[in-house]
């Protein structure tokens, strides 16, 4: 399992890419859903 997260020594780069990507997508979904609730659509 730790081998998987280590990514052959490239863990920082691989997870730094995936982590930021999914955090940003989640943030966009959250903001759109918040706007949706506020406009009552």
């Amino acid at each position: 399992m730790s081998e998987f997260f280590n990514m052959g020594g490239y863990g920082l780069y691989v997870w730094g890419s995936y982590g930021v990507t999914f955090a940003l997508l989640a943030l966009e979904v959250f903001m759109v859903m918040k706007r949706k609730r506020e406009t009552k659509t």
Partner: protein
Amino acid sequence: MTTDSIKWFWYSSPQTFFPLAGRIARVSAVLAILFGIAGLYTGLFVAPTDATQGEAYRIIYIHVPAAWMSMFLYVVMAFWAAIGLAFNTRLSFLMARALAPTGALFTFIALWTGSFWGKPTWGTWWVWDARLTSELILLFLYFGYMALQAAIDDRRRADRAGAVLAIVGVVNVPIIYYSVKWWNTLHQGASVSFSKAPSMAATMLTGMLLMALCFWAYSIAVALTRVRCEIAEAG
């Protein structure tokens, strides 16, 4: 006017498009999750380690699809902006408006993941290479479009000014795409081409295409949900 053209314009009315957009958005959201799970599983667990780049290459599963979406969404945005200018249809402008933040997001993701890929493979976070620079210009075009929309109070004027900027900026998309051919860039050439056989393992290609479908469905879901908000707010 023929009956065909009446049907064509039927969904150009925001009120009739509103419920349809909601249905497509819901289906797309489910598809995005399914394609995302399949793509991540294929990319992170099934696909083999790259012979030269080791595990660092696994960034490809988000980097390449995000870069495709950044360019594709810009073209779609400029298309709706052009339709809006030509036919003065309100829904077209609302579509262009709804697509811009998602396009900017994917452009940023392409740049960010590219930087995190460049550091271990090239030894640098950033170079002023033609591919990287033109992609950065794309990000500024999205920001410029959104800033212009926000800066002009009159909605009709804002839509028209934004549309002109979006259409002029479309010239940058082929520059990004062909930059690796036209100039000597540190960035590698196209990973996938229609004219030649794939240069990567079948599972790698499958993972990348599944992630592209995931981002595609995600963009449709988010943009259509946003256009529903635009329609509701515009009244």
